């Protein structure tokens, strides 16, 4: 439990997000384009954090589903920044164990051969999002 609380504080620190401001209005989940894809929904991020259930947050699918489109951040009436919360959970997960199997630099030439249109920007993004 102690470790979990440490993680909760780390998430608060990394995200710079104030979970206590949340009034559970649901505008984040109402705005999220990836809601259906997520197992933990945007309005629930704060709940997981507040009860210290950080392992579940770090293991959830939502950390890979958030597009960082910031619709939730823009529309949140309390400035809670749900996208920053889930990003912090993703960072903790990546730092502990990066998803290296998804992509390695060696795979890039093959990918480009398969689809020569892939923009550099996509490759750069993917390395930022999935790899340590």
């Amino acid at each position: 439990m102690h470790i979990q609380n440490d993680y909760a504080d780390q998430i608060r620190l990394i995200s710079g997000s104030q979970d206590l401001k949340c009034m559970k209005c649901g505008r984040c989940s109402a705005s999220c384009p990836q809601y259906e894809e997520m197992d933990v929904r945007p309005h629930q991020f704060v709940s997981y954090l507040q009860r210290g259930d950080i392992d579940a947050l770090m293991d959830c699918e939502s950390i890979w589903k958030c597009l960082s489109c910031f619709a939730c951040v823009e529309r949140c009436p309390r400035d809670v920044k749900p996208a920053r919360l889930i990003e912090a959970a993703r960072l903790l997960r990546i730092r502990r164990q990066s998803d290296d199997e998804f992509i390695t630099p060696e795979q890039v030439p093959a990918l480009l051969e398969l689809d020569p249109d892939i923009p550099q920007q996509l490759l750069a993004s993917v390395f930022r999002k999935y790899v340590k």
Partner: protein
Amino acid sequence: MVFSYYPGCTLKTQAKELDRLARNSAKVLGIILEEVEDWQCCGAVYPLGTDEIATKLASVRVLKEAAKKGQPLVTLCAACTHVIKRVNDDMKNNGDIRRKVNKYMEEEADYKGETEVLHLIEVINKYIGFDKLKEYVKNPLTGRKIGAYYGCMLLRPSSVMAFDDPENPTIFEKFIKALGADPVIYPYRNECCGGYISLKEKDRVKEMVATIKENAKHNGAEQLITACPLCLYNLKQISCRDLNIDYLTEILAEALGITYNSEEEVSYAYSK
């Protein structure tokens, strides 16, 4: 008007047109874009973590180069605009990040967010004005129904990006109108295209893009323009008859009457 210019990785590779046509068009408009020397990739994704320092350094180096010249920094790619504007905001308003970055860089002068970061469309709006832009148009795009696809990164979070009204933006529509075409306003122009997940989950991206394109077509668009190479790539993942997807610089160059393969024009920017 001389500006520092940050093309970014994709504009040197997949999105060469976005870069070349921008330089050519800018020259016609009297905007000189001086490419920042030895720039590095901004990373394409803004490092949201407040403890992420190393991933912000590439942006700070570019910002600092522009600051040395006292020039605003112009970007074109939506992702570069997003990342560099946000890092600049951190350097200006987040004392902790500013201190750590400056300490890490160990250079004489600290950087405190002095540089103004502008997307090319903001430069045109601010320094030329869309009314004046009309006067430069040689081939007005009369009768063309063009929708702007803003995506996420230029608009949100609006408190930092300060690009336009994040829910009902109008700057691209004013631009399209100035070029003589009919701007098509459609509600999905600020909805996400799926972004980086297209490598892992292409089908999901196709679903999202389909909704955007249907919405644009429903409202009468025959062409979409974007400032983002990834948005362009994603939007092209499903074919859709009668709806071309192009960079905003392509319609700009077209309206200004810039011939497509003029190497001379390109070299202008380097030689000043």
